C-alpha cells in the first residue's frame, strides 16, 4: 500500500521554527524552514541532521516550499541552504521572495552585529540562498518534475502567504499556514474541493474562536482613543510587515475621522520600504484596498511619521508602532522599559507571543520582571550603546550579569488577536471546504492541539494526527489506477445502459486489460487479440440428438422451427436458407442416416462464448424427446 509520511522537524506540538518533511509518492518535500524566537542556541533552528547526518540535503529533498515571510517559517532558510547545503528549488510567492531577504538580513544584524554571535549566516549567504528561489504565482500549477506538481492558493495571513497543494499521481497533501477566514474578500481566495489525503494546518489559536474582526477593530480603536484622551502613551509592538500595515490603515482613517492631533509613529527604518512593498503587491491585499488604489493608495499615510529614539521621552500622548512584536529585543522593548512605570500608558499586543519572551510574560499577568537573563542584559546594553562601542558593551554585559534589574509593570497590558493565525473556526471551515481524508496539526501547543483534534475527529470523523518533532505520522493511501479505455468499448457500454444511469441496473462492462511497459489499456477482447497479433482459437461443441421422424429432412427442420418458435418466447429464432435453424447463436441441423430415413440426427452446435442463459444442451436436447413424443 502506498503511504504518505509526515515528520515535523520543528513546530511539532510547538509554536515556532516551522519545518515539516513530507514524503509522498517517492518524493521528499520540506514545508517551511523557520527559526524559533524563544531560543538562542541550537534549538533555534530545526534539526536537519534528521534528514542526513553528514553532507548536503540536495540529494534527499525534491523541493522546499516556504508559505510566508515570517521568520518562524523562513528564518532557517539560509542556514539550511548555505551552511547545511541544499541546491534544489525553493518555492515561494513573489511578495515572500521580495520581503523574506529583508527580514532575514534584519534578523542576521540583530544576532551577529548586536548580540555578537559568530557562526551565523552572512549577508552573502542570504543572497545566494535567494538565488535558489523560484517564484510562485497564485493558482499556477508548477511541475517540479514529471510527477510532482504544486499549486499555490491565497491564504490571506500576511502579504503573499500561500496554501500549497502538493500532488504526486493521485495522492495529494495540502499545507496551510494560518488561513484567514476573512480572506474570502479577496477575489481568488480559498481552496477548491481538492480532497487531499492529508491536510496539514497550523493550530496556533486552536482553542480560540475569535469574535468578528470588526468588533476587534472597534475595541482596538476605543482603547487607543481612551488612553490618548487621558494623556497616556500607547505602545504597539509589531513585526515590520504584515498586520502592522493593516493597523496603520485603521488608525490613519480613525485619526482623520476624529480629527485627532496626537502623533503616531512607526519605529522601524523599514516602514517606508515595507509600505512600498504593499503598494507594489496591492493585488495581494484585500478587495477594498485594491478597488480604491488608483484614487488613493492606502499605504501613503498622512498621520503616521517616522520615529526617533528621542521621541520616547517627549511629554504628552502618542501612539508608537515598534518592532519586534514579542517584546523580546530591540526598540519595542526599549520603549516598553521607559513607559512601563506609568499606569496611564498602555501596551497593546496584537499577536501571539512565544514562551520565554517578555510579551508572553506580561500577557500572563506578570507584573514584576527580572531583567537579569544574560542574553537580555547584553541585548539591552548593546542597544543603549552606539555601534562603535559594541565591544565595550560586551565587556559591560559581563559586569552587569551580576546585577538584577527589576522592572515594575504598571502600564495597562491589552491583548488583541489581530495576528491572522488560523483559529478553530477557520480550520473547521477549511476542512469543510477541502474535504481531506486525514488531518494533521502542527505549529500549536500540545494541549490546544489535543482539544482541536478531538473536535475534528468528532465532527468530521476523519483521523487527526499531531506528531511531535522528529515523530512520523504515516497515512496509507489507496489510489485508484488510471487506465486508458478504448472509446469504442466505453461507448458500447454507455449505450447499453441507456442515456441515464439506472441505479437498479448497474452498467457492467467486460474487456481485456493490456499491460505493456508502463501503459495500461483497456480494450474489447476482439481488439486485444488484434493488437497483440494473436489468432483466435475457436472452441465449438456439437451435440447429437437422435429422433424418429418420418418427414423429409427439410420438413423436420421446419417442424422444429415452428415448434421452437412457439416454445421459446423472447429468443431470436431464424430459419436460414442454407438448411439450418439458428436459436440466437446456436446452430441446429438435421441429417438422416442412410439406412433408416426415419431415424434423424439433430446436430446442435454452439461456440464456447455462448452465454449460459440459453444453455442449449439441457433445453434443446429435451426437444428431441419431446419431438419423439410429438410424432406419436
Amino acid at each position, binding site marked *: 500500500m502506498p503511504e504518505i509520511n509526515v515528520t515535523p522537524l520543528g513546530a511539532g506540538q510547538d509554536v515556532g521554527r516551522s519545518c515539516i518533511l513530507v514524503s509522498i509518492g517517492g518524493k521528499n518535500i520540506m514545508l517551511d524552514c523557520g527559526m524559533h524566537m524563544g531560543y538562542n542556541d541550537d534549538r533555534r533552528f530545526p534539526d536537519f541532521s534528521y534528514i542526513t547526518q553528514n553532507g548536503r540535503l540536495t540529494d534527499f529533498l525534491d523541493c522546499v516550499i516556504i508559505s510566508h515571510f515570517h521568520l518562524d517559517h523562513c528564518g532557517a532558510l539560509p542556514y539550511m541552504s548555505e551552511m547545511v547545503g541544499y541546491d534544489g528549488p525553493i518555492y515561494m510567492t513573489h511578495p515572500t521572495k521580495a520581503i523574506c531577504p529583508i527580514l532575514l538580513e534584519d534578523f542576521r544584524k540583530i544576532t551577529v552585529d548586536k548580540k555578537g554571535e559568530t557562526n551565523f549566516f552572512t549577508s552573502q549567504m542570504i543572497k545566494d540562498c535567494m538565488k535558489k528561489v523560484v517564484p510562485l504565482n497564485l493558482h499556477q500549477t508548477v511541475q517540479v518534475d514529471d510527477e510532482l506538481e504544486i499549486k499555490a492558493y491565497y491564504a490571506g495571513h500576511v502579504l503573499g502567504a500561500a496554501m500549497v497543494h502538493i500532488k504526486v499521481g493521485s495522492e495529494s497533501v495540502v499545507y496551510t499556514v494560518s488561513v484567514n477566514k476573512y480572506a474570502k474578500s479577496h477575489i481568488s481566495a480559498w481552496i477548491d474541493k481538492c480532497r487531499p489525503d492529508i491536510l496539514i494546518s497550523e493550530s496556533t489559536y486552536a482553542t480560540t474562536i475569535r469574535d468578528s474582526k470588526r468588533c476587534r477593530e472597534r475595541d482596538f480603536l476605543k482603547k487607543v482613543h481612551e488612553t490618548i484622551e487621558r494623556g497616556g502613551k500607547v505602545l504597539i509592538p509589531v513585526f515590520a510587515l504584515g498586520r502592522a500595515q493593516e493597523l496603520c490603515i485603521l488608525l490613519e482613517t480613525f485619526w482623520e475621522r476624529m480629527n485627532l492631533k496626537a502623533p503616531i509613529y512607526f519605529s522601524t527604518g523599514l516602514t517606508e520600504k515595507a509600505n512600498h512593498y504593499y503598494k507594489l503587491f496591492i*493585488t495581494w491585499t484585500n478587495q477594498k484596498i485594491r478597488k480604491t*488604489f488608483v484614487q488613493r493608495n492606502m499605504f501613503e499615510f498622512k498621520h503616521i511619521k517616522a520615529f526617533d529614539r528621542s521621541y520616547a521621552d517627549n511629554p504628552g500622548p502618542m501612539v508608537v508602532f515598534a518592532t519586534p512584536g514579542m517584546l523580546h529585543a530591540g526598540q519595542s522593548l526599549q520603549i516598553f522599559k521607559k513607559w512601563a512605570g506609568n499606569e496611564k500608558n498602555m501596551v497593546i499586543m496584537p499577536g501571539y507571543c512565544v514562551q520565554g519572551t517578555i510579551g508572553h510574560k506580561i500577557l500572563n499577568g506578570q507584573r514584576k520582571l527580572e531583567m537579569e537573563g544574560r542574553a537580555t542584559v547584553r541585548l539591552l546594553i548593546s542597544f543603549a550603546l552606539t555601534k562603535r562601542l559594541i565591544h565595550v558593551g560586551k565587556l559591560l554585559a559581563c559586569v552587569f550579569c551580576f546585577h538584577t534589574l527589576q522592572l515594575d509593570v504598571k502600564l495597562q497590558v491589552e491583548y488583541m488577536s489581530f495576528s491572522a493565525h488560523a483559529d478553530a473556526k477557520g480550520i473547521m471551515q477549511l476542512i469543510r471546504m477541502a474535504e481531506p481524508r486525514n488531518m494533521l496539526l502542527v505549529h500549536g501547543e500540545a494541549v490546544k492541539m489535543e482539544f482541536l483534534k478531538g473536535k475534528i475527529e468528532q465532527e468530521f470523523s476523519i483521523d487527526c494526527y499531531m506528531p511531535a518533532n522528529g515523530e512520523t505520522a504515516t497515512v496509507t493511501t489507496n489510489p485508484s489506477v488510471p*487506465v*486508458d479505455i*478504448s472509446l469504442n468499448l466505453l461507448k458500447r457500454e454507455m449505450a447499453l445502459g441507456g442515456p441515464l444511469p439506472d441505479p437498479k441496473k448497474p452498467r457492467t462492462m467486460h474487456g481485456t486489460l493490456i499491460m505493456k511497459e508502463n501503459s495500461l489499456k483497456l480494450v474489447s477482447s476482439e481488439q486485444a487479440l488484434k493488437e497483440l497479433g494473436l489468432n483466435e482459437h475457436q472452441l465449438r*461443441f456439437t451435440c447429437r*440428438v437422435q429422433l424418429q421422424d418420418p418427414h423429409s429432412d427439410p420438413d423436420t427442420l421446419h417442424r422444429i422451427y415452428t415448434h421452437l418458435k412457439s416454445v421459446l418466447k423472447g429468443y431470436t429464432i431464424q430459419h436460414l436458407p442454407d438448411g439450418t435453424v439458428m436459436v440466437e447463436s446456436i446452430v441446429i441441423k438435421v441429417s438422416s442416416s442412410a439406412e433408416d430415413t426415419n431415424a434423424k440426427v439433430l446436430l446442435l452446435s454452439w461456440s464456447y462464448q*455462448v452465454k449460459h*442463459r440459453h444453455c442449449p444442451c439441457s433445453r434443446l436436447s429435451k426437444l428431441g424427446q419431446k419431438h419423439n413424443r410429438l410424432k406419436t
Partner: protein
Amino acid sequence: MKLYCLSGHPTLPCNVLKFKSTTIMLDCGLDTTSVLNFLPLPLVHSPRLSKLPGWISKDGTINLEKVLDARELLDLSTIDVILISNYHCMMALPYITEHTGFTGTVYATEPTLQIGRLLMEEVVNFMERVPKAQSATCWKNKEIQRMLPGPLKDAVDVWTWKRCYSMQEVNSALSKVQLVGYSQKVELFGAVQVSPLSSGYSLGSSNWIIQSHHEKVSYVSGSSLLTTHPQPMDQSSLKNSDVLILTGLTQMPTANPDGMLGEFCSNLAMTIRAGGNVLVPCYSSGVIYDLLECLYQFIESASLGTTPFYFISPVANSSLEFSQIFAEWLCHNKQTKVYLPEPPFPHAELIQTNKLKHYPSIHGDFSSEFRQPCVVFTGHPSLRFGDVVHFMELWGKSSLNTIIFTEPDFSYLDALAPYQPLAMKCVYCPIDTRLNFHQVSKLLKEVQPLHVVCPEQYTQPPLTQSHRSDLMLELQPPPMPYRRCSVLNLPFRRRYERVYILPELANSLVPSEIKPGVSVATVSAVVHSKDNKHTLQSVPKPPPVAPSKKRKRVMDEPPVVLAPKPLLSGAVPLEAFLATLQKHGITEVKVEETADGHILHLQAEDTLIQLEEDGTHIVCDNNEPLRTTLRDLVLRFLQKL
C-alpha cells in the same frame, strides 16, 4: 471535433471549438475598422465638419462592427466558456454575454481583465460624452445602402454593425469573468482541461492549451518573442499538440519594431526642436508603456528634458497605476525591480519629476496647464473619436506639427481622410511586436504540431506584396486555412478515454503474461460515470437468495448477469492433450491425422474431438458432465482474453 470561425480578421479572432461535448469560444475580438466609414466626433463644435456636403442627412453615429452575427452558424447561448487571450481580443465581450442568452463563464488573467475593462471604459466614455441628437439606421437596409456613395455602398455586412455598448453592459459582461493564472489547470465539466500560457505580447496575454488525457489543442493568439515588458512566451508547453490554431501574427510583417521605435524617437525629437508639437494617437495600454520607457532613456540624450509629455485619456491614470502592480506578469528584469522595491516601469519617475502628466480629458486642468511645444499621447487611434479629434483640428493646419502613428490596427491614410487637406507632417511607424512569419515557422518547427489551422490570409502573401513568398506560412502538411463563417472538421479521431479502476477491483485482477513484457487480464466491472469521470468498480455480488419454499418465485428473479466467456487464443498441443486425457481416465483414443490437424475419437464415450491450429470442435451426445470435463481440459492449453 469542429471549429467554427466567426471572424475573418486574423488579429481579432473569434473561433468556437467543439471538443468532447464542450463548446469553447476562443477570443471575441471586435473589428472596429468600420468606424473609418464615419465622420470624426469632435469634442468642440467644428464648423468645418458640420459644413461638409452631406448625402441627404449624414448619419453620424459611430458604430462598431460586431465580430459576426453568428446565429446562423451556431447558437451562441450554447457556449460553455469563453477563453480570452489578451485585452485587445475581448472588446466584443458585452455583445456576446449580454444579448445572446449566454450563461457560461469567461476565463481571463487578472491584467487582461483590468486593462480590458479600462479599454472598454475608455471607448464608452469617448462615445457617451458626445451624445448624438439623432441616429439613423435605415441606411443599413440593402436597398438604401445600394444608393449610398462608395465606399459605404461596398461595405459588407453593415447589418452586423452595432451601436457601442454601455458601461452597465460592460460591468455585467466583466462580472462573468473568472480569473486564472498562467499554467493554472482549469477543469471544464471534468471532460476538458484548459490552461493559459504566457504569450509574451502584452500584460497578462495568454495562449491556451485545451486538452483531455489523449488530445491536445493549442490556441496561439497574439504572441511575441521580443523582450518588451511582459513575461516571455512559454513555448515548450505547446509541444505535442494534435492541432495548433494559429492567429494574431504581426500585421506589419515588413516593419521591424526596433527600427520603428528609433524612427519614432528621431521624428519626435526633430519636430520638438523645430518648435512643433507631436501627436501620438494610441491605445491607453500596451505599446505606450514601451514608448514611455524608450523616451525615458531618450529624453536626456536628446535634451528634451523640458518638453512636457501629456497622456490624455479617461483611463490614463488607472492605466499607468495598474501597470505598476502586476509584477508577477512582467519580464524578469522588471520583476527584480519590485524586489528592491522600486516601481517596475520608469514612467513612475517621469510622473514624479513632472515630465509626464496625465489628464482624463482636454477639459479641466489640462487647458490651463497646457504648454507648447509638447508631446501628446491620446486616443482613439482611428482618429474618429476621443480627444485626438480635437488635436487634429487644433494642430492639423501647421506644418511644424507631426502626427506619429504607432498602432498598426488602422490604415493611417484612411484615418486621416476626413482631415484632408492637412499641413501637418505624418509619420507612420507601426509597432507590432507579434510574431512574424520567420519567427512563427521557427516556433512551429520547434513545437511540431500534427496539424496547423490558421486564417486564410496567412496561407498566401499579402495582396500588395504578392511576390514576397516569405510573408506566408509554408508548412508540411499544409496548414488548414479558415475564413469567416467556415466550419472546419479538425482531423483527429478520439480513440481512448481515461477511466479509473478502484483499488478493490484492481486487486482482484489476475494478469497473465502473454508475451515477454506484455500481460493481460480480463476485466468485468461496473462503470460509474459522474461529471464526465469514469470509474470501474467490482461487479457487486448478487445477494444470496433466501431459501424459499416457493420455487417459482426464485425462478422469477432476474437472471444474474454473468461475465461473458473470454476469447481464446493459442493452440492445443496433441501430445500434451493426450497425456492429460489419459490422466483423466480417457484412454481409448484413436488419433487420425487430417489436412488441418487431428481428429481424436474417444471410442468408449463415442465422442469426437477435432484439434486444429485455430479451433477445437467437440462432438458428443447429450453428455453434459463429459463435455464439461473435456472443455476444461482444452481450456488449460489456451490463453484467455
